[in-house]
């Protein structure tokens, strides 16, 4: 079994209002050192296979087709053995 950990983040230059608002809030809460916040999604997908190459191709495709919105988002992922 493999565990894919997928990180979906906004592309460079795409505004992230949510991150901006959180940044301002953290400043208001007294965390003066906060320079910027960018938000993203984190997904964990368990896969039945043990074949890393096949899994990698599949995860790549899932990201492209469903998990990330290629117009504004980018993704990366890691694969590890699990449970």
């Amino acid at each position, binding site marked *: 079994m493999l565990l894919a950990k997928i990180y979906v983040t906004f592309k460079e*230059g*795409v*505004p*992230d*209002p949510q991150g*901006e*608002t959180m940044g*301002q809030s953290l400043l208001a809460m007294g965390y003066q050192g906060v320079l910027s916040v960018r938000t993203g999604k984190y997904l964990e997908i368990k896969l039945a296979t043990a074949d890393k190459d096949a899994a990698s191709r599949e995860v790549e495709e899932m990201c492209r087709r469903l998990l990330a*919105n*290629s*117009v*504004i988002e980018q993704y990366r992922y890691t694969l590890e053995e699990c449970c």
Partner: protein
Amino acid sequence: MEPKVYRQMGLTDYEYGRIKEILGREPNYVETGMFAVMWSEHCGYKNSRPVLKLFPTEAPWVLQGPGENAGVVDIGDGQAVVFKIESHNHPSAIEPFQGAATGVGGIVRDIFTMGARPIAVLNSLRLGPLENPRNRYLMAGAVGGISFYSNCLGLPTVAGEVYFEPTYSGNPLVNAMAVGLIEHKDILRAKASGIGNDVMYIGARTGRDGIHGATFASEELSMTMEAQQPAVPVGDPFREKLLLEACLEIIKEDLIIGMQDMGAAGLTSSSCEMAARAVTGMELNLDLVPRREEGMTPYEIMLSESQERMLLVAKEGARERIEAICRRWGLEAVVIGRVTSDGIMRIKEKGRVVAAVPAKALTDQCPVYERERRRPSYLDRVQNTDLSSLPEPEDYGAALLKLIATPNLASKEWIYRQCDYMARTDTVAGPGGDAAVLRIKGTGKGLALTVDGNGRYCYLDPERGGAIAVAEAARNLSCVGARPLAITNCLNFGNPEKPEVAWQFYQAVVGMSRACEALQTPVTGGNVSFYNETEGEAIYPTPIVGMVGLLADIKHACGSGFSRENDEIILLGETHAEIGGSEYLAVIHSLVAGEPPQLDLEREKAVQELVREAIAAGLVRAAHDCAEGGLAIALAESVINGGLGARIELESSLRPDYLLFSESQSRVLLAVAPACRDRVLALARQKGIPATVIGLCGGSALEVSLNGRVLFNLSLGELEQTWRESIPALMAG
């Protein structure tokens, strides 16, 4: 400058030549960019301006017609309603969620720049068939974006419309309309007067997003565009809410001369349009513009379409108070320039002038093209299709169920339950009826709102289709008891450089104008969206009409559902053998052909007056207009909406399918108490309107018979389930 450079920005050689003439020199890169966006179709209306002049724009109750950010109409008691519709088609085709969301954001800003408090939003969508996963993705995205943005703003989405046709598969339409309420004394015009006054920037920071969006909206979508990934605008409804509250406070305190949002063409259009309206100039210092990204060039700053930004011209001495209000709302407010007397837009960066062009040159000297018009050849083919030999359906019950399940006629609850339609606690009638009804707090009055259009009719005859769009919108308002006041419109067409599209455009505007004149609903504003094409194929010509009306007494607001046993059902108007362009023809016979139904505007007007009078006199329990799907669908909707069946007995020499499904205009169904029936019939006689008692409310089925023969008998449960579950089932894939 290399032709390649300005052409890429969207300027033609001729236009570039004009710029050189106006300036008496070569424009620099920044200036060329400013001209390119201001002279784009989206901002400059270069292909539509002469045609738009045909619209009637005046009436005693119109306080502001086209030319400002939104139209304004008097509703008495010192109050007025502010409204406008706008397209966000191209961004939505690329990224439906953000495209639709920022469409709402933009149109709401147009309302509060006039000084009005936004009170409601509406939308109009056109998509390809839901059987296609891409279209489902577009629908889910667009609806998600609309609900995300308007819900967060706390604005009810009170009405809308959506149609599915293959023609929109490559090029969906997303039009958003917003409505606001204002006291006459607060009405603000977007002018930059008062030499030396501060020009202030408030709201979100400027990033590189959406550069050249206006030009993008003025081009055909190509297959490669998705790959090119033009910077999609991203909406921040939270910031817009803060901006809205801050701006309204600023206006209440009378601190500004005018304001305009930095929407299409961003800082360029907002600044030069305000200056041009006041015949002034502006000097802007770009070093002072708040940025989201580092290293932005003057070109990028001038053209960015970052959302949720406003440009204000402050009254003398008001700057500190404006800053304080913005600070309280957590917004940045910066003076970035001042109003000048010489009519020049002078843009500076690091002490250097990076652009200096006359404001008027950008706004008023945009070339105007009288496009060649040619009647498209497809019209002969489709209009002359022989429809008389089509077979009758064998089973009318099955035909009706099939029709009511077609997404164009099925329940749109899947959409509107995602949108808060009750926010602000004024929604007396939300989505699902003929028109939305909002009470106006503190008065006994109500506003009625609707948005309407039928691309298929316009494809078959743009003139008549345009007129019907206006007539039907007005009819919808009349059916809730409201007097139609005025319209805003969004004209969604293909590439106007094609003579056939130019012809469609012209014809549609002629038809709309004719109906607006007859029904006394002038045009107070709108928006033109051209270049809605994919791979050279234009969409159906699709003018969308947004209309507002006034109810003198909110207590008389009328619904469309049959709800009382033994109420009598009256059909106003006449049914003709008119199935051209109908849903029946499309769904049952897979044909888009024929002529759309005739429209007699005198008759239309009289029917609507009758409906309004009867409602105002308290004679009507339900009113519903017969539109797409014809009499049978109107009956089914009234039965479902009221939760009560009906028994209908028709007498006619028409073919049964024509009688049931013709979309003949100027017809309205009424349900009236038995005691009121004769008064309604007398009123109709007086006005010369055919009125036929066709049946009774009651029971738990819809039964329709013709000349004594039962055509169908369907249980309410089956009707409702078919109607309600169709779109959810399709969306589930």
